[in-house]
């Protein structure tokens, strides 16, 4: 191998780690909002991602049949709609199911698991049991090849950029907006927040819906790198929980750092070991660190 080749592979491998980081962060973000801020274990997180994926599929089919000329531009609009639709479903789920179970956190786990099975069957009945493939705009496909032998995946760059935007948006909202203030107050001390006039019920519903909306965006973005089918969401749910738990449930920064750590460990070990062994190594590292720090990497400074 020449020096150029090693240099190219190193660059591409570096980007592989970065793009896995983006994927993990994006899939964990919605869960971190819900789990971290509300303490609800949302087992249906993957299915809210699937809502996003099917939104892209719907938009691409509609665009193809009604306005084929717009196939290059529908994608960003569809992502916004994926957020809105998943948000609406999240709002509904919180109103119908979750709000009755806040005092019974383990029951939310069961209830949301049931919700996830129900949603999977709903997708199956609506869109059919087989996977579908949304038509993606050409500019999202293929690779950017600045020099011979160097290929940077365009979909990877897209997911990375989207992750930066969404994470930035969530952090900004959480630390600069009135909603963020209310959420943080509710997390810190629910009774006190209530006493000073914060409508914690509404805050909860909005938080849950926003978390679901972010999951929808993640699902929409992942149509560029993964499958769209009734059970696609279940491919991501384990990794999403891993990222959030490892990072420390109540901290968004923890989620960011944990996604980065897991992504780098996995992508580097995958390069030097076989795929299954790399997974074992990554999980071993997570388990060891969680044994030493059960609260995760970043614990929230909250007086309990």
């Amino acid at each position, binding site marked *: *191998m020449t020096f150029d*080749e090693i240099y190219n*592979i190193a660059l*591409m*491998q570096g*980007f*592989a780690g970065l*793009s*896995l980081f983006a*994927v993990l962060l994006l899939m964990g973000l919605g869960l971190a909002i819900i789990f971290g801020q509300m303490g609800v274990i949302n087992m249906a997180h993957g299915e809210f991602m699937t809502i996003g994926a099917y939104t892209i599929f719907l938009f691409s089919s509609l665009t193809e049949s009604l306005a084929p000329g717009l196939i290059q531009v529908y994608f960003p609009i569809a992502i916004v709609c994926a957020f809105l639709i998943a948000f609406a479903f999240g709002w509904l789920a919180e109103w119908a199911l979750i709000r009755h179970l806040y005092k019974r956190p383990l029951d939310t786990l069961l209830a949301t698991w049931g919700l996830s099975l129900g949603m999977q*069957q709903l997708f*199956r009945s609506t869109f*059919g*049991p*087989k*996977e*579908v*493939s949304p*038509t993606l705009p050409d500019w999202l*496909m*293929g*690779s950017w*090849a600045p020099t011979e032998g160097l*290929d940077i*995946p*365009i*979909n*990877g760059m897209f997911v990375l950029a989207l992750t930066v935007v969404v994470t930035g948006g969530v952090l900004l909202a959480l630390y600069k907006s009135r909603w963020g203030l209310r959420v943080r107050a509710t997390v810190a001390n629910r009774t006190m927040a209530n006493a000073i006039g914060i409508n914690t019920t509404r805050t909860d519903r909005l938080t849950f819906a926003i978390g679901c909306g972010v999951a929808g965006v993640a699902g929409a973005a*992942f149509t*560029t*790198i*993964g*499958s*769209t*089918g*009734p*059970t*696609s969401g*279940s*491919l*991501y749910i384990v990794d999403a929980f891993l990222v959030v738990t490892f990072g420390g449930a109540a901290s968004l920064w923890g989620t960011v750092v944990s996604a980065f750590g897991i992504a780098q460990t*996995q*992508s*580097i070990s*995958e*390069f030097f070991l*076989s*795929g*299954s062994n*790399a*997974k074992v190594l990554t999980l071993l590292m997570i388990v060891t660190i969680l044994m030493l720090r059960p609260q995760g990497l970043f614990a929230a400074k909250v007086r309990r």
Partner: protein
Amino acid sequence: MSSKSDQSKMSLDRRRLLQGLAALPLVSMSGLSFGQAFPTTKVNTTGLAITDTEVTVGQLHSATGTMAISETGSIQAEQLAIDEINAMGGILGRKIKVIKEDGASDWPTFAEKSRKLLVNDKVATVFGCWTSASRKAVLPIFEKENGLLYYPTFYEGLEQSKNVIYTGQEATQQIIWGLDWAQKEKGAKKFFLVGSDYIWPRTSMKIARKHIENFQKGSVVGEEYYPLGNTNFNSLINKIKIAKPDCIFCAVVGGSNVAFYKQLKAAGITANKQFLLTLSVTEDEMLGIGGENFEGFYASMKYFQSLENDNNKKFVAAFKAKYGPKAVIGDVTQAAYLGPWLWKAAVEKAGSFDVDKVVAASPGIELKTAPEGYVKIHENHHLWSKTRIGMGQADGQFKVVAESPELIEPNPFPKGYQ
């Protein structure tokens, strides 16, 4: 003659007597019907759910759960074959009635439902299972209750049961001719093997490696397995780029499959730069992967929807008429379609629905009307079949570019490949 033989058993079995009496008017009414040639007491000596006009069979697939993606095609194809057989007048004068059970992608459920079909419903045969795991779960029950199973999926081999007819290819049929074609036509010497991490890809790749190294004198420059459901292949793709194989030979399945091809394309590995041959992409998988992501890559299968022959044209037309113009037919779907037809041929040859007699009659059964062309059941309960190479097209179909000249003998326990 039937009434005479019934009378001789009269003292032995009251129930038989009643059945015999019930059959009498039918025999006298229709002199030329099958009822006379094949009275129920003759064709069913083991108490299966068979009447003078009806034979009950079971269908056991996953209509729900993760495997519904794959098994739906098999359910549809078996139903189509059964409908067609019924429209022709059924088997031995009896219409086929189907009891559908849902294995729900869960192997213990498969076992439980198969026991229900065999013990409670007394079905004459079962068409079902898709994954090897589900087949392994029901196998002991079929052997204990002496049931009969038609299994449609191409699989890893290393199995042969009196109670199972395997209508898909076993691993050597699918792999060896494909590898020889890759070597001869594409000049492939260096192979990179990729699979999902479970029994079928591992066994398949073991056979592939032995064949490449011992028989083709080629080399394996990489062999990698990823957990089922893995969606990130960028590191693997970089390793492939370093190894520079002539051929990527792969058996990645499920949701991973889609991620694998999307990411290959995004990393600049396309058909004009890289030769790729797979064992696990049929027209069904193409729906999820998207034709544009698989264009120009090759698959080794016994059947493609685009096969040019009269049987297949009829089959594709009938399938689309029943399930809509957008329906696609993959390798396993076609193999599932063969099940009811092979069973019909064996029952008619045996002149009986008894499992032992049907099994004994099965080896040597030929099907000239199979969509894939001519097939024949081997002594080892697998099918003689041809292997084809299809090239992926942008519209999600395959173009058949090569076909083995002869039928390939099934060899579920290949010597020298273990």
